[in-house]
């Protein structure tokens, strides 16, 4: 079977406009660093550190959420698993932060752990929703074909779960950015966006500009990657 297309942009113009939107926050941040008299390198280092933490947490969250979703989306297990997931996801994660600091210290691991427990749930529930939409006839067609094991996962479960994965990623990462800054401030990380906002908390102008830059960055990232992916994944499931 051929590899799935990665064509997520409708046209070259679409890709060019999207790239333009992505360049915008970087230009903004450069101008901002000059205006606020902050070394651009330090600013980008803070953004890079936070981005790296979120990326690692996102990777772990996707892996965990996907494995849990495909293991528990049907059968008798779902009757126990879903209420259990629901209770776990509504648990106030910040209440565990002091405990995590004791065990993991003021480290990247603590921030990443917190990001995982924040980002994972929307992804898990979205993937489960996608898997629950599997038509009986699709399952029967797979069963009659005799497809099993890794092929079953690759050619059937994975493509069916992708729309949920993308929807969940958009929601999860939105919550992730929010939790990221707060966790970095609470944990007291020496670099990252939390550190940046904490440092300039007495300066409302810089804080406001910083928030604008962060919003532009998130907005552009959504336009570059997530929205085209979301459209593409839903289009691929149209019958």
């Amino acid at each position, binding site marked *: *079977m*051929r590899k*799935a297309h990665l064509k997520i942009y409708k046209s070259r113009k679409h890709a060019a406009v999207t790239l333009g939107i992505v360049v915008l926050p970087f230009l903004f941040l450069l101008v901002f660093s000059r205006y606020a008299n902050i070394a651009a390198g330090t600013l980008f280092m803070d953004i890079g550190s936070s981005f790296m933490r979120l990326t690692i947490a996102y990777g772990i969250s996707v892996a965990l959420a996907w494995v849990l979703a495909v293991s528990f989306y049907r059968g008798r297990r779902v009757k126990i698993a879903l209420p259990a997931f629901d209770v776990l996801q509504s648990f106030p994660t910040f209440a565990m932060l002091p405990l995590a600091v004791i065990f993991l210290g003021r480290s990247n691991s603590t921030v990443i752990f917190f990001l995982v427990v924040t980002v994972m749930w929307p992804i898990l529930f979205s993937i489960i929703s996608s898997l629950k939409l599997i*038509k009986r*006839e*699709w399952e*029967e*067609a*797979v*069963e*009659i*074909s*005799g*497809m*099993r094991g890794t*092929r079953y996962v690759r*050619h*059937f479960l994975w*493509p*069916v779960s*992708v729309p949920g994965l993308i929807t969940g990623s958009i929601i999860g990462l939105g919550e992730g950015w929010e939790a990221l800054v707060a966790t970095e401030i609470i944990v007291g990380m020496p670099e990252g966006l939390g550190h940046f906002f904490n440092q300039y908390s007495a300066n409302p102008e810089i804080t406001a500009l910083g928030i604008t830059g962060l919003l532009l960055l998130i907005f552009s990232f959504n336009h570059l990657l997530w929205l085209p992916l979301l459209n593409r994944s839903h289009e*691929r*499931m*149209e*019958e």
Partner: protein
Amino acid sequence: MAELITVRNIQKTFADNGGKISALADIDIAVAEGEFLVFVGPSGSGKSTLLRIMSGLDQEYNGELQYAEDLKRSEISFVFQQFALFPWLTVEENIGFGLAARNMPEKERREIIKKELNEFGLESFARVPPRDLSGGMKQRVGIARALATAPRVVFMDEPFSELDSFTADELRKELLTLWHARKMTIIMVTHIVEEAILLADRIAVLTPRPGRIEKIIKNDLPRPRVERSQDFYDLEDKITKIIRP
């Protein structure tokens, strides 16, 4: 001819609001190799349920289902009423799905897919997703997918009921040609009496719930069958009277 599939005293019940509904009762029939058997009956007669039991898709029933010793599970295929094509795959990938499941080498798989695309007139749609096809084309892909694995038995669940009458007529003729050429056994369900008479060697008439085989009629009308002949009308009347006495 040797019996390929035999069912004895098949019964199926569904749970409903704390009670039980009997969907199928006392089903006994044997299907010979190469035969075209059609189950015909009204809605709720358990036709699709019976087909799923016979194909092995539904294993929750009482009674006995027996396959000939040399019939392997991989030699069974299924055509679905609503096509059941995978929307994330192209036409050629859908056709090759069963072959991929069998771990067939890429080159061999490509050859079979190409052959099926030609057979069903789908060459120019090979890389198109199913959503861009008409209903008739979708069912062509569904049948091509079922036949690509060279099955000995093909189960068909009302395969033409979602199509307009012209397309359905065309596909019935193509199906008969393929059945002759590939010498497979076809077990099909339909609620259209004319369709059953046009296609079947034998017609098993099912009663409304619980579905029972009221009568098995050997269809001796010469092929190709003419829908407007007196014999055709007589047989149609006979079957209709059994379904609606």
